Every structure is written in structure tokens, then in C-alpha cells.
């Protein structure tokens, strides 16, 4: 009998010893570990002091009482809502633990979808270790989530504005929504629609309203919604957006001296550019040329400087002066007119050539970017590079600049104080592409004459040369497009002050959303001020995750704005942003500004904000039916079940005891 027991024990021991070999890893549920830590992200704008105990109980009900809660606060009292959610993304990305976001979900607009994507793609959400706990007030409402207008709007051309409305209403009921759009004080358009609320009660509707602009420049558009039954209320039934309105067809003056290949290519590209009219005057002979042929046999006219730089100047949208010695062809009055044209908001491109930047005329010298005449170098090849620390420019533009090379380049230019260097030479660090604000206008100078020719100016001996030539050609095209858009006033690459962006401004705001035209100069502080010359310095910065351009004011708007009543309706305030500290002519625009009291009502929940993240409340009921919802991981068998080893040793001891006892009996 004992012998059979011994055999059984031996087989059991063998089985136990072989178990870790046959099943080295097993799945285990990590919530069962005693030292489980849970990060709880608390929104600083939710007063949780009284609710904390309730919250802890709620979490413990789900995860068990032995969990350790680690509270992390996101957002700041003075932050705007977009910054609160930027802060949340940063903190979620750093979290490795199971995390619960406690949020009001009061974030709407274009960037809210970017936020949703970031959270959805975060590591802990992909591992199903992220939960969202909704703390918003449960009521019916309608808000404008986003007011969208295209990047490029042409004057006198109808454009569609898109107003995204989000809300919550009685399921399956009918709603009448009325939307009105204003540009400053003038009415733009309105539209009324009737919608059927879905069974879920959640509304997401995009309304398209055509609008027409009658003047060019940057303008503010305000949209307001009302509904029946009344669900829309200030401030969230209003949103504004800054738009850039430009001419559909633009007229450029192209003046040049001594035509060459650069002229041919630039003219060729300008002529083939859509919606662009070109007026060209080229100097084909000068006073020193041989005049043996009578004028009557020539097809040339005297350069009409008094006409084009006089009466016709105001009709031009932009001027390109290529290798042009202004002083030789413009009189004192014409020179003054040209400078005044730029100062009044005109745009001038100086395309360098051997005869550029040599004028002694003081008026003309105001247009040059260098303190003294630079040197023209024709023998060396120079490579361009973007001066990235100066500007925050779109990637495509930066890439373009880094692929351009020139063989006829001005070097040793010492830029004037107000000049923004957009690109410099890799070899010498001399500026090669500059922009200079001159009161309301801007002068862009290319300090190389042959940045445009690519294929015909560089030898193609091998595949690498061909590749480089292609990159160079693409880069030149991109830079040419930038130049045309600059002349058309579609953008200015961060040279001009940006505009205040929507959707809403509150008088207690210390942080404002802004929108630049082609890039934000992070190194340059701005001055925000009212028409009464009250104002404050502000520092620009960019939110990395939500890619939003922002401004930090030294003090809130309420400290220098004329008193704003506590009424919930916005008041129209004339504000200006200027990079020069207010010394230059300012461009004021009307912006709708809400009172600080209205800011407290920016509390409606965006039901789509945490789409793709597990709802904490829904999780409770799910757990009751299925354990599989728990987070599990693989672990070595002996780590999960260490008692298997002890059991084997006990069985071995019994087996030894019985075997030795039987043996002793036999010896006796």
C-alpha cells in the first residue's frame, strides 16, 4: 500500500516540476496586486473639495480598497481652456499608471478634435488603462463649437462660412436654429434651419452660410446662434474668427534693368501665374548706349517714371524691382511717392542684381535692408538656410529655403535694426532673404539674383546632381509662390503682428489665442492696446500638442480695457496688436469681448471630446458581467503561483519519509 502511495507521490512531484516547463507564463490580472497605483487627473476648474470623498468611494468600488490614489491637477486658474487641455495631454503622455481623467469636457472648436485624437492615441489609452469621468452639468444646451472660413477669401466673391453647432436637447424633438453673421458692425448674412434631434439627444450640425466681403485686409467675423425652444445662451452661442480677404486678381508692376535669364524666368513664372496681371517696364538701353539709330526706327519709349510712380502707383497691388537702379530712373518726387506707397501699406520686392542697392538717394535707401551697400559676389556658389531661430514658419517653406543655392549673391549685408532675416547664407551667415516693415507696408529683398533658375544653372553630371537640381527647382517654385502670396497680401511670414483669434475673448483673459499670417516670430514681443493708448506688452508662444499660437499678456485685458459691464452680452472693443511697441501706425479692429462673469458659463460639455476613451461610469456595469475587461498581463508561472514549489518540496519530503521507512523495515 505504502509503495503505491510513494509511486503516486513521485508522479505528482514530477508533474509539479514539469509544470513550469510546460506552461512557463500565465496571464494574470494586475488589479489584483496589492500595490496598485491609480493616477487621478483632476481639473483645477472643478471644485472637488466636497466631492473628493464621493469620488474616492466611486473609484474604490471599482478597483478595490487597497489601491493607492495619486492626484494630479491639470490646468491653471489663469489659463485659457485650450491651455488646460494642452496641459492634460502633456500629463497623460507622461503617465504610465492606470489613469482616470475627471473633466468637464468644456473644450470645443477646431483644436478639440486634435485633442481627441491625441488622447485616443496615447499609450495608456491604447493599453485600455485610461478612463474618463464626466463631471459636467447635465442640462440641455446649444453652442457654437467652431466658425470656419477658408484661408483665402477674395473680395466681392461669395464664400461659404461653416458653423459647427453642438448641443443636447430633448430626444426626437424639433429645434429651430437661427444663425447671424457680422463683420465688425456690419451685417453679413443670416440663416434659419429646423433640425430633428436624434434619439440620443446629442446634436452635431454644420450650417453653411454664404458671406460676401467688400474690402480687403484682415477682418473679424462674428457668428451668433439663437434657437426655439431657447437652448442657446451667451457666451457660448457666439464665436468669432479672423479672416484674410485679398484681391482675386492682382496687378503687379515689374521693373528691371538689363534683361537676363533671371528676368526671363521670373517674368515667365509671373505671366503663367493665375489671376495675376503684369505691367512690365524693362530698361533695354541707357544714356551711355550708342544712339546711332534714329528714335523713329526704335520700338522703345522713355521710361514713364512720372506716370507709373505717380498717378498709376495707387492702382498697383505690388511692385517687383529686379536689378533696378531706382536713382537713375526715378526723380525726387517719384522716389518719395514710392516710399510713401510702401508706407501706406504697399508691398515691394527687391530682386537683387548687379545694379541693386547702389542708390545714394535717401528716400530710396529707406527701402534697402542693409545699413550700407553690400558686395556683389559672382564667383562662388552659396547655399541658403532658413534662420529658424527668428521665425516659426511652416515646414514646407523652411525645407524650400534650405535647398536653394545661388551663384550671384550679395554678401556682407549688415541688416538694419527692424529687418527680419528670413534666410541666410550657410557659408558666411550673411542675410540673403529679408523682410522689413516700413510703417504699414513691407519690403522683401532677395539678396541673390539667380535663386529662380535651377535646371539651366547647375551642371547635371550624375544622379546626385539631377536629384539636387530637382530639389532646387521645387524649392525655387515654392519660394516663388511665397513671394507672389506676399505681394497679394495673402500672408507675410510672421513679419506683421498676428490677429487675435476666436472663438471667444473674456476681459479677465491673460492668455489669448492668436493667428499669424505665414509664421509667428517667437522672439518678438507684441504690444496690445486700445484706441486710448492703454495697453500692455505680450509674449507669443506656441502650444506644442495642439499647435495653437498664443499670447501671454503681462496683465489681463480688464486692467486696461474701458470698463466692461457684467452683462453676459459681449461688447465691441477696438484693439490693435503691434510688434513695434506702439510707435508705428496701428491697425485697430473690433473684437467681441465678454465680461469675466460670462467666462464662468463656458462650462458646457462637448460630448465628442473623449470619444475613444473608456467611460468610468460605464465601466462599473461592464465589470459586473465580465472579468475580461480587466487589464491582464503575462507573468512566469512560479511568480504567480510560488506555492507550487513549496507543495513539490512537501510532497518530496513525504515521499522520502515513506521510502526511507519502508527501506528501514526491509533491512530489519
Amino acid at each position, binding site marked *: 500500500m505504502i509503495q503505491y502511495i510513494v509511486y503516486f507521490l513521485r508522479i505528482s512531484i514530477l508533474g509539479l516540476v514539469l509544470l513550469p516547463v510546460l506552461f512557463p507564463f500565465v496571464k494574470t490580472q494586475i488589479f489584483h496586486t496589492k500595490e496598485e497605483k491609480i493616477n487621478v487627473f483632476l481639473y483645477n476648474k472643478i471644485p472637488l473639495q466636497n466631492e473628493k470623498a464621493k469620488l474616492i468611494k466611486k473609484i474604490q468600488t471599482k478597483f478595490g480598497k487597497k489601491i493607492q490614489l495619486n492626484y494630479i491637477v491639470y490646468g491653471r486658474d489663469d489659463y485659457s481652456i485650450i491651455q488646460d487641455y494642452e496641459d492634460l495631454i502633456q500629463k497623460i503622455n507622461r503617465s504610465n499608471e492606470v489613469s482616470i481623467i475627471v473633466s468637464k469636457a468644456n473644450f470645443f472648436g477646431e483644436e478639440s478634435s486634435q485633442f481627441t485624437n491625441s488622447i485616443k492615441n496615447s499609450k495608456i489609452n491604447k493599453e485600455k488603462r485610461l478612463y474618463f469621468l464626466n463631471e459636467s452639468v447635465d442640462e440641455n444646451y446649444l453652442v457654437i463649437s467652431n466658425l470656419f472660413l477658408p484661408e483665402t477669401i477674395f473680395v466681392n466673391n461669395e464664400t461659404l462660412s461653416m458653423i459647427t453647432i453642438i448641443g443636447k436637447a430633448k430626444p426626437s424633438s424639433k429645434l429651430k436654429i437661427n444663425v447671424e453673421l457680422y463683420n465688425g458692425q456690419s451685417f453679413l448674412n443670416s440663416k434659419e434651419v429646423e433640425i430633428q434631434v436624434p434619439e440620443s439627444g446629442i446634436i452635431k450640425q454644420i450650417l453653411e452660410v454664404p458671406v460676401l466681403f467688400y474690402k480687403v485686409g484682415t477682418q473679424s467675423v462674428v457668428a451668433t446662434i439663437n434657437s426655439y425652444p431657447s437652448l442657446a445662451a451667451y457666451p457660448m452661442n457666439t464665436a468669432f474668427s479672423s479672416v484674410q480677404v485679398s484681391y482675386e486678381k492682382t496687378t503687379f508692376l515689374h521693373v528691371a534693368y538689363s*534683361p537676363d535669364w533671371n528676368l526671363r524666368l521670373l517674368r515667365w513664372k509671373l*505671366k503663367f501665374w493665375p489671376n495675376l496681371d503684369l505691367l512690365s517696364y524693362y530698361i533695354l*538701353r541707357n544714356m551711355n548706349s550708342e544712339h546711332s539709330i534714329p528714335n*523713329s526706327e526704335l520700338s522703345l519709349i522713355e521710361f514713364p517714371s512720372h506716370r507709373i510712380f505717380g498717378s498709376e502707383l495707387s492702382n498697383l497691388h505690388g511692385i517687383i524691382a529686379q536689378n533696378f537702379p531706382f536713382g537713375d530712373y526715378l526723380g525726387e518726387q517719384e522716389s518719395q511717392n514710392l516710399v510713401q506707397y510702401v508706407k501706406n501699406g504697399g508691398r515691394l520686392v527687391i530682386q537683387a542684381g548687379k545694379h541693386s542697392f547702389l542708390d545714394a538717394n535717401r528716400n530710396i535707401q529707406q527701402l534697402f535692408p542693409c545699413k550700407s551697400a553690400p558686395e556683389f559676389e559672382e564667383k562662388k556658389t552659396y547655399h541658403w538656410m532658413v534662420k529658424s531661430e527668428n521665425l516659426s514658419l511652416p515646414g514646407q517653406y523652411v525645407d524650400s529655403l534650405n535647398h536653394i543655392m545661388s551663384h550671384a549673391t550679395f554678401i556682407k549685408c549688415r541688416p538694419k535694426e527692424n529687418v527680419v532675416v528670413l534666410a541666410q547664407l550657410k557659408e558666411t551667415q550673411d542675410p540673403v532673404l529679408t523682410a522689413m516693415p516700413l510703417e504699414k507696408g513691407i519690403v522683401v529683398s532677395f539678396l541673390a539674383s539667380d535663386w529662380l533658375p535651377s535646371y539651366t544653372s*547647375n551642371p547635371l553630371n550624375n544622379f546626385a546632381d539631377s536629384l539636387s537640381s530637382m530639389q532646387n527647382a521645387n524649392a525655387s517654385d515654392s519660394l516663388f509662390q511665397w513671394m507672389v502670396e506676399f505681394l497679394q497680401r495673402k500672408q507675410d511670414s510672421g513679419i506683421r503682428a498676428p490677429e487675435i483669434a476666436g472663438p471667444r475673448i473674456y476681459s479677465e483673459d491673460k492668455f489669448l489665442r492668436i493667428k499669424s499670417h505665414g509664421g509667428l516670430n517667437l522672439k518678438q514681443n507684441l504690444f496690445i492696446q486700445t484706441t486710448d493708448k492703454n495697453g500692455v506688452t505680450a509674449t507669443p508662444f506656441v502650444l506644442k500638442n495642439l499647435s495653437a499660437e498664443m499670447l501671454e499678456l503681462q496683465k489681463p485685458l480688464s486692467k486696461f480695457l474701458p470698463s466692461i459691464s457684467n452683462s453676459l452680452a459681449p461688447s465691441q472693443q477696438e484693439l490693435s496688436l503691434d510688434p513695434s511697441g506702439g510707435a508705428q501706425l496701428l491697425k485697430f479692429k473690433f473684437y467681441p469681448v465678454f465680461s469675466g462673469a460670462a467666462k464662468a458659463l463656458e462650462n458646457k460639455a462637448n460630448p465628442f471630446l473623449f470619444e475613444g476613451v473608456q467611460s468610468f461610469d460605464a465601466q462599473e456595469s461592464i465589470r459586473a458581467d465580465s472579468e475580461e475587461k480587466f487589464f491582464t498581463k503575462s507573468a512566469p508561472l512560479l511568480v504567480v503561483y510560488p506555492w507550487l514549489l513549496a507543495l513539490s518540496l512537501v510532497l518530496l519530503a513525504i515521499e522520502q519519509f515513506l521510502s526511507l521507512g519502508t527501506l528501514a523495515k526491509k533491512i530489519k
Partner: protein
Amino acid sequence: MLIKYILALLSLIYSLSSYAHVGFRISWCSAQVPDKLAENYFALKSVVERRTTLVFPKNILLNACQPGKADIWWFDFASFYSFNLTDIQTHILNGGVFIVEGDMKDNINLLNNETIGLTLVTPEKNGMFYRSFYLLQSLDGCSPDTSKVLMLRKKANAQAPVGLFTKTNFLSSGRIDCFQDNMDYKIRSFINIMFAFMTTDYKEDQSDLPEILDRIKKLGLEP
């Protein structure tokens, strides 16, 4: 003879070694270098630079009708027909131009390609080849004028000349063209051709030119 070889050698060395920037670069494309190529080029260059603001490259290049080596490819008719047409089309589409001089053959229509916007046309009498600098009656001195221009059209109102076929022997020599010994008119034609290529159709931008129209009327030319 020795001078000719020295000039040709210097030009070759220049074409191979230097890419110093010039306003534009011209290359002679034929393997056979005409007797007085350099001499003819310098003569034209000298007069053009005296009369206009155009600045010509110091030398005409040899063996440089290749991508990236010259902007203007200059052929005689014999060498043009032996050249690869695809290479010429690629040169045009990348911004280059060509000029073919000498006795014209019938099959120059080969470059016509409507799909990429290339059309061979007779230059208009009121167009840039006849009006860019001088007011001309004939571009090649012949009556009737037999010159042909290859135009690249991209928009209804935007086109640029990319090639010219002319009977006039500007750079080659030994053959008599319609200008015969009238060097002044030959130079006028050369200047107009160069400006037509450099400035394309810039005069069409100037809507208001009553002064020129009056001169055209007095010379009895087509308006």
C-alpha cells in the same frame, strides 16, 4: 588658323571649368565648329553691348548643349537634325531655349506638340521679334520672311518663345543669307531676337503706347 584653335580651346576650357554666374549662357551645339564662330560672336556681342543694356557672356561655349550647362542652345541646321529631339524638348520644358540658323528643311514641324503646349508658328509682325527693340520689316532680311518660332503656351494670354528657326547665319559663316553685307540690319535682327527671348512678350503688358503706334504708322508697318 592658329588663333581659331586657341579661341576654340579657350572656349572649351571655359565651358568645362567655370560656372561663374553670367546673365545667361550660350552654347554652340554642333560638333563642327564654324571657321569664324568666336570672331562672329565677339563682333555681335560688342555691338549689342554698345547699343543696349544686354550683357553677353564672355565666350560662347562649346560642347555644352547639356542640362545645366547652357541656357541658349545654338545649332546650325545640320547639327539640329542629328540632335536628340527628346533632349531638346526636355531643355525647353526646364526653361531653356534654342536657336537654329541656316538653310531650313521642311521637317521642322517635328517639335510641334500640342499636349505640352508647343506650337511652331510664323512670328507675328506686331509681335516681339519685330518690335522688341527695333521696328523691323523682316527678321531674316528675306522677302517673304521665312523665320519660324516655337511658342510655349500655358494660358490664353501667356506664351513665351522657346525656339527660333532663321535663315540668317549669325554665328556660322561662309554662306550668304538675305542680309548679304547689310551688317546693321543683321545686328538689328540679332538684338530683337535676343530681347524677344529675354523679355518674352513684355510690350503686351503696356496697354498704352500711342507713341510707338504712331511711329509704326509712319514707317508703314503693320500695326
